[in-house]
């Protein structure tokens, strides 16, 4: 027991280091920086190259890594964040996602995707403590984490520069009037946080024993979880969150097994957010507007436009071959997933980064209804959608009142928990083995299996969802949602109960996400946990943001670009994902309101 706690504290110190940079950026720039994970990996790989290939001493290499990641952070701020200073925060979040995609691929191209040894240069003294053998570095890493947090906290609280950084974050206009260069301060904050990522990447790599470009994904996620656990934006909280998470992870793995790691990690975050949201006053509307920016009303759905869309979608099979239809089928499925967020984010003014959980729940539920209960697709798909709707209302809606980026992180954690459960609820989901040989939908005796049939099914479902969402937006219910989005207090005063209406939006959105999942099942006829990852949630959000918030047509346009572009870039081979990331960054930069959004 003492042993588990002790090694949990060492593990937790590595996570605390990863959490520090995330919390710092959130605290001083109010940005959930999704590029932090890729920065960790870059720092770690550069550290490997400097020590192993350039034969620099460890400490000299660490200094170079700090300098390099700081410059990189400043560059990210200049290219991706500063131009969006006046854009809604959600756009900035997406810009950091795009930067992360680019940076991950660059790290892989520069250092090759191989795993490398990062030698531990510290003395090999070991202390035996119970059954644990701690070496010098194990004992040093908690001290390093605490000292780093202390130094940064001192810098922010006591120095003039640190105070200027905080002032720029709290009230940019006032800071500017006091003669503070706000842009420079934000740049400095990014440099500082990024160098923390560099330190964390190199030290965590030393602790684990090896480094690889792909390590940013899991370490970044764990860092986010730790930062969220400790309360985003608080440096002490990041350290405490890291240590807590380390201990909880080690205890959980000891009791339940290593494959439960993600469930344990994200369930801990979800519980923390649930507890916190009970203490938070309802202010979803107020922060929602700040997060998304104010939007003009979406234009009503015109029957003529729908008729044109129906005509166009059904004309595609006459013009295009199976390959294009396969891509178009995927686009229709992800456009439907996007629609589930159009309602929640664009209309009601809250956000979900957990749509992958509902997408997966709908897919698995419909597959199980078909395989185990022998239902037809036409019964199983709506039933799967219903399961996702209930899950959305029960799991995600309770945190909805957190609002803003906190809500984004909370829903992200819920989605990740649901996906992690797919792997661990063996009895139901078959665990990593997945569900295969799912019968295809049968349309009056005709099996829906070809690229054309799959596309037509997905396109028809998309149109149905489009009409439902369009009608809901134009209905009195839609008016109530928009009232909530624009001013929650006023809406509540006129009888629109925020929690009930928000839950309803989440449930309907969840149902649509679940239906998209059922369509995916019909297309693949095979499900495994690998199919669903947190990136899918980010993709769904990107689709609606790029398409234009609250505009049902935006979901189609966003999905066409985001699913279609990686396919269109295939001739670029090795540079395909890099080009995709750059294109995404450019879109966010030059059209922050989305294609069909209004400034």
């Amino acid at each position, binding site marked *: 027991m003492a042993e588990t706690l002790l090694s949990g504290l060492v593990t937790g110190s590595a996570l605390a280091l990863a959490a520090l940079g995330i919390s710092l950026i959130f605290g001083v720039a109010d940005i959930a920086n999704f590029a932090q994970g890729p920065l960790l990996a870059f720092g770690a790989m550069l550290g490997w190259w400097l020590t192993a290939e350039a034969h620099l001493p460890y400490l000299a290499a660490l200094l170079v890594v700090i300098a390099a990641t700081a410059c990189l952070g400043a560059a990210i701020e200049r290219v991706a964040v500063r131009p969006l200073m006046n854009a809604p925060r959600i756009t900035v979040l997406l810009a950091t996602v795009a930067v992360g995609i680019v940076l991950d691929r660059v790290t892989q191209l520069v250092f090759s995707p191989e*795993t490398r040894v990062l030698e531990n240069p510290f003395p090999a003294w070991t202390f035996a403590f119970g*059954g*644990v053998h701690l070496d010098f570095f194990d004992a040093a890493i908690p001290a390093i984490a605490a000292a780093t947090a202390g130094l940064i906290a001192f810098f922010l609280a006591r120095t003039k520069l640190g105070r200027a950084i905080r002032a720029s974050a709290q009230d940019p206009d006032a800071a500017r009037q006091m003669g503070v260069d706000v842009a420079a301060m934000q740049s400095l904050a990014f440099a500082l946080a990024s160098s923390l990522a560099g330190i964390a990447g190199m030290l965590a790599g030393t602790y684990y024993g*090896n480094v690889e470009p*792909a390590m940013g994904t899991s370490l970044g996620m764990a860092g986010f979880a730790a930062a969220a656990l400790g309360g985003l934006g608080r440096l002490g909280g990041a350290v405490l969150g890291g240590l807590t998470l380390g201990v909880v992870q080690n205890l959980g793995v000891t009791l339940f097994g290593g494959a439960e*790691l*993600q469930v344990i990690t994200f369930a801990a975050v979800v519980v923390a957010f649930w507890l916190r949201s009970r203490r938070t006053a309802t202010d979803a509307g107020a922060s929602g507007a700040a997060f998304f920016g104010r939007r003009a009303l979406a234009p009503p759905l015109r029957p003529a436009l729908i008729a044109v869309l129906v005509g166009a979608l059904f004309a*595609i099979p006459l013009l295009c071959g199976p390959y294009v239809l396969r891509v178009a089928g995927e686009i229709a499925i992800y456009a439907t997933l996007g629609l589930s967020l159009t309602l929640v984010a664009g209309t009601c003014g809250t956000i979900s980064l957990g749509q992958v959980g509902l997408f997966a729940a709908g897919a698995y539920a419909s597959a199980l209804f078909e395989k185990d209960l022998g239902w037809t697709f036409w019964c199983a798909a709506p039933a799967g959608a219903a399961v996702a709707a209930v899950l959305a209302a029960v799991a995600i809606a309770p945190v909805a009142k957190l609002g803003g980026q906190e809500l984004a992180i909370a829903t992200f954690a819920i989605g990740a928990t649901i996906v992690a459960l797919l792997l661990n609820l063996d009895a139901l989901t078959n665990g990593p083995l997945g569900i295969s040989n799912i019968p295809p939908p049968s349309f009056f005796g005709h099996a829906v299996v070809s690229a054309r049939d799959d596309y037509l099914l997905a396109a028809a479902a998309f149109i149905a969802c489009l009409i439902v969402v369009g009608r809901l937006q134009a209905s009195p219910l839609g008016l109530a949602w928009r009232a909530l989005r624009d001013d929650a207090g006023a809406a509540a005063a006129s009888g629109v109960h925020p929690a009930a209406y928000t839950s309803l939006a989440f449930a309907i959105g969840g149902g649509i996400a679940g239906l998209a999942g059922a369509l995916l099942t019909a297309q693949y006829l*095979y499900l495994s946990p690998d199919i669903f990852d947190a990136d899918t949630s980010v993709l769904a959000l990107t689709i609606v943001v790029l398409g234009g918030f609250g505009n049902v047509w935006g979901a189609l346009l966003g999905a066409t670009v985001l699913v279609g572009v990686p396919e269109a870039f*295939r001739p670029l081979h090795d540079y395909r994902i890099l080009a995709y990331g750059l294109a995404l960054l450019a879109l966010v930069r030059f059209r922050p309101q989305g294609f069909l959004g209004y400034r």
Partner: protein
Amino acid sequence: MNANLSRARFLAALGTTALAACSGSRGGGAGAASVVRFGVSGPFSGDDANYGRVWRAAMDLAADEINRSGGLHGRPLELVYEDTQSDPRQSVVVAQQFADDPSILVELGDFSSAASIAASPVYERAGLVQFGFTNSDPKFTAGGEYMFSTATSVRADARIIAKRAARIGRRHAVVFQDTVWGKSASSAYAASAKELGVDVVSVQNYLPDTKDFHAVLGNVRAANPDVVVYYSYYTDGALLARQARDVGLTARSVTTGACYNQQFIALGGPAVDGFVLPVEFFAADPRPAVRRFARAYETRYHEVPDLFAGFAFDAVRIAAWAAVDGGFTRSGVRDAFATGTRIPSIVDGPFHFGADRRSARSSERWLVIRNGGFTLWNDA
């Protein structure tokens, strides 16, 4: 007004692009008829890109050798690599792209069973052989008549390992990565151990991207096993070995061919010394075909070919043989795979596919890691 105008322009541009995408045809010029093309669907970027890199190296080597010696009945061979990141979302689309392109005779890959199985219905409908040469999941070859694999089925592999491990000790622990492969392999192992009357005292799983194994290995140590069997890839396997020393685990270690890679030793250092593993492919194998391949690979890439390199090299040659034998048609290739009796292979020697469309493999070679190198393990 302005917003509307730019929106209209944007939509027009998008429409033009979509039309161009619809009407554009892929591949196929006038001279293309004589070229033989194989599609390769694999992780050339993303988290599994290190395996994709090895695939491409070994496959390029095989294709270049074939082309230097006059091609396939005089026709040059071209490999069409498409990156899927081993993501089912992309492997299905790539499958359709290969299926639509009549010049593609056979498909190789994907790397993960999940990416392959999701794409199987598309290949099956197109009558295109999907040669998932690394897909050890029994469900893969059960997915259709066109799915073939040379990866050892997890059941046969488990029997081999359990038998040998039972001679080392009677208290076994199993540590596996919680993937399709690790999960089915560890259950198969438990079944084999039961047949042999061996005690499995601890079964521990972990997520493939785990870096910190102290808690998992603490559980193993608490069960006090004589032998620990690791179902791991070389990266996680090396970390497990290093951290096993941290927690004071001293049992003998057995792993699988997935750790047959010089990187396993480079990453694990002294901690992997004494590990034993059964392999299907061994670069220092004295058989001439293997020697030739290993030398050519080392000359060109300055590294020792690993298990996946051997399989990837073999896969291209097997597919090339089938293309010639099947008269350069898709159905001919399928027949060659299904009915060929002496298919050339550097891994297995001449072999044939069994009724389950997997190679019927009987050879068993064990390696041990000593003094920082793999050597044949001759202890009886």
